[in-house]
């Protein structure tokens, strides 16, 4: 398939891009790495009037530690995130997740902003950003605003970003001493979108979870924070019974969507298995730390 005709504008600067977004409204579409957008164009699943290329905007990429916040520019390529010492040290959850994002060729072009803007329910980065309590900075001609991850992901490819807004940056709290993170996913082939997956951030005291965020992806219509499963675990000594209670409680947190990869029941089963494994791993990591 070949893409239908579209106009193409290379945005020279942020303000240029914002201007274009504002003028074009629904007719404009940002292209970052193009790894998700290009296939939909070629299959004529989306037919935007004008592509706004943000790849040459100078100040839209890069990773910096700013106090206890890691700032990642929207145009930062997956490969840069994967290779970043700042990410490795301060966002070990994302460092652990990155090898699961697609393949080398796709990671060389694809951007973290593109992932978060697209909000594929099986994507790794949205789940990590939510688990870590990050925020998205979006900008329009009217100014910028910061949206907490909890408020940002609305559903299947739907987010709080308005059509005239550019996602410019992710702000993610750096790991605090004692934080434990675990990332796990199940995909039949390496690099595929997850059949089920879990991003977990915990504070552990001895054999008990004091704080815990569990974010599931690949099964719901968006990355999903589990509360019931967390309640079943917090303050309890970690044990087989506790694991059982947590996985049981997960049935109230999740309502998986079936797809070609599996039924709702199977996805729930897999998320339960991952929950037990991730929490076991968290305890092991806490002991080892």
């Amino acid at each position: 398939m070949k893409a239908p005709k579209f106009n193409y504008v290379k945005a020279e600067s942020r303000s240029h891009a914002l201007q274009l977004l504002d003028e074009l409204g629904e007719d404009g579409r940002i292209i970052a790495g193009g790894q998700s957008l290009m296939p939909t164009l070629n299959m004529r699943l989306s037919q935007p009037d004008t592509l706004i290329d943000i790849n040459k905007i100078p100040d839209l990429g890069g990773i910096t530690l700013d106090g206890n916040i890691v700032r990642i520019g929207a145009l930062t390529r997956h490969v840069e995130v994967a290779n970043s010492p700042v990410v490795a040290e301060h966002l070990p959850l994302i460092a652990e997740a990155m090898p699961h994002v697609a393949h080398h060729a796709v990671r060389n072009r694809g951007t973290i902003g593109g992932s978060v803007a697209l909000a594929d329910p099986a994507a790794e980065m949205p789940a990590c950003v939510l688990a870590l309590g990050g925020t998205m900075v979006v900008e329009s001609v009217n100014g910028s605003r910061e949206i907490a991850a909890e408020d940002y992901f609305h559903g299947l490819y739907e987010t709080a970003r308005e059509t005239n807004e550019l996602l410019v940056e992710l702000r993610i709290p750096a790991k605090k001493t004692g934080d434990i993170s675990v990332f796990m996913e199940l995909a039949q082939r390496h690099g595929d979108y997850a059949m089920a997956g879990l991003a977990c951030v915990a504070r552990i005291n001895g054999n008990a979870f004091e704080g815990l965020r569990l974010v599931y992806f690949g099964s719901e219509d968006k990355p999903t924070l589990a509360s019931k499963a967390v309640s079943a675990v917090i303050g309890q000594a970690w044990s087989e019974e506790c694991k059982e209670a947590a996985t049981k409680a997960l049935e109230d947190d999740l309502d998986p969507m079936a797809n070609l990869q599996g039924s709702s029941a199977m996805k729930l089963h897999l998320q339960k298995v991952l929950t037990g494994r991730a929490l076991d791993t968290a305890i092991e990591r806490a002991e080892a730390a």
Partner: protein
Amino acid sequence: MNKESPAPILDRPNSYVGRTLSRDAAKRAVAGRGRYTDDINPARTLHAAFVRSPYGHAKILSVDVEEAKQQPGVALVMTGAELAEMCTGPWVGTLTCFDGMKSAPQYPMAVDRACWQGEPLVMVVASSRAAAEDAAEFVMIEYEELPVVIDKETALDPDTPAIHPDLGDNLAFEKTIETGDVDKAVAEADIVIEDTFTFGRHTAVSLEPRALLAEYDPGTERLTIHTSSQCPHMVQAVFARTLGLPEHNVRIVAPDVGGSFGLKIHTFGDEIATIAASVKLARPVKFIADRLESFATDIHARENRVRGRIAVTKDGKITSMDIDIRSGAGAYSQYPRTSVFEANQILNITGGPYAHENYRASTQVVYLNKVPTSQYRAVGHPIGNSVGESLVDQAAAACGIDPMEFRRRNVMHDDSYPRIGAAGIEMRDMSHQQCLETLVERMNYDALREEQEEFRKKGVQRGIGIAAFIKGTAPGPSGYYGAGGAPIATQDACTVKLEPAGGVICMVGVTDQGQGVDTVMGQITAATLGVPIESVRVIEGDTDAVPYGGGTYASRATAIGGEATYQAALKLRAEILEIAGVLLQAAPETLDIVEGHVVDKGDTVSRISLAEIGRIGHFQVFELPNHVQPTLSATHRFRLRDALYIFTNGIQGAYVEVDIDTGFLKLLNHWVVEDCGRVINPQLADEQVRGGCVQGLGGALYEECVYDAAGQLQNATLADYLTPMAGEMPDIEVAHIQTHTGVSELGAKGVGESGTGAAPAVVMNAVNDALRPFGGKISSQPMSPETILKALGKV
């Protein structure tokens, strides 16, 4: 091994036969310098795109192309009805060798009714593919949706509508064979095991999709077609006959072909349309299927349900097997090779390695509103082997006998050939026992069983699978295509020529799709003639150049084309020695050719070079007496005589780990011991087996063309139709037993499909071996994590 070699010349020291030599074609492909059909861009080339049926089954009420014709760059918009007028008649995909078979007449593009989603309806030809696709959006078609037949199990029910009312029902073909007395064997057996197996639809997914460039020259009325094909002469005949052109005016060139796997032995309606456009416009017209079109229009295969039963004595002797196959074809039987070979092969080969004398197999092939099915690598074998080998494993378990030992007790003995197999087909030159014992050694079988036990104690569930197999290769002339009425040669030919400067040109009817057929033919030529490999140039894939042949399919290239090449080279060699004898005043029998020079037998000192003979033979013929009229060219044609196939055999082993909580598999190790007769190039043979295994594993674990109830293909992208990737594949250890076939002097059998044929069986057996302690069992493929979890009762 072999007593007296009938081809001693190939067994000389330093022979090019039996040696790994690198492929020139691989070097160019790896460097990105391959020249595929789409790389060929004559001036003024137009591009075709197709409007395809969005429905599984629909009446076409009206077609309005007026607006499409007005779009920028459009040169032609052609409807199915217009194309039908350019054709000599519809295709009917039946062969007379399949008694009672029926299929509806099919036009290259649907005329008044679309019978599967993706069937071509209207062609748009424009200045670029993008322009053609843009214009295609302006073709207006009114449809009336018709009920679809999607489920093969209910396709023959009285209340299921017939897709083609003229056929009366949806039955394409049925057949039953029986040898011995199955009912008696079952009644007398100690143990009888029954199971039902289901297999999903697959498609070939060649890296290079179908591709065709047609160039009609109205001056000479010649048509040159570059196309990604395995069988140039067959497509020449089909294209020419369908469009009413003289066959000799149609030249088919298959340039580099990027994978084929059986897909490219077929012809498709969109290809006929593209050629018709070139004839009509007198301009080059190109059609390159994109990935979506590949999924929705390339032949599909493997959709079968098989009920199987095995009867055994309690000491582990198989007394009978019987199977019943329901095979799901598409909306038409694929022309000209049909959609019933698969079921027929399942019937031919199930339980094929074993010595039981009672066998019954019946099949019904039914039409469905899906893409037509036909031959795909290892036709029917993945199914027949999975059924037979799973039944054998289940019987072994029921008898309490180790599955390797069980097979040892039941395989045909190596000294028992020729003999008739259970399906009534002659078997010869096979080596089940030797292959099995070699596998035991290679796997270190007993130690592996112990290791498996140790892991079980640690809660790690590993499984060991074994699957013996037979594989029908290199079909003979009596059985099918030619005999059945299709223009497909089962013979193949080679012409070898000595050029003036001593170079050797070898022209073969068999073709290369990346597997190294050209390299192998070069090796045979060089070894037989006695010339350096560098001086041999192999030409294939051009009907203007090569002798008429069937091309490459059914693992026949080396077995059939290789023998033709060997014999042609022998003839040329004899002529060269005769000329040398005259020039050197020596008896030809006292001379030999070594490294491009004629020498005295047993010596290496050059008496005259082939370049000198070439020079004299072409330019200085007056130096020869009048009775010597050098042709320096020899052709040989080879075909099987009585044999239906050259059957090969082998056995595979697999070691897998099953995560019983997630249903995920890890493929730890894979072994293949197979007998393809004489191995010409060990590395190429190994890689055929490895690649074949990977293709089989893909089918067993991941691949399935999923249709919904309305006949919509759900996963026509490479993100949704999962093919195997290197990261998940095991190491595959390959060993060859070389029992030369007696039907040729070369002694080579086919090797290209042996991996694919049994890999699904062996991995299913391995998974079931891991699940057995939990009472779980899988009898359907692909074996997704969900299938495994269901077998374990976890979801």
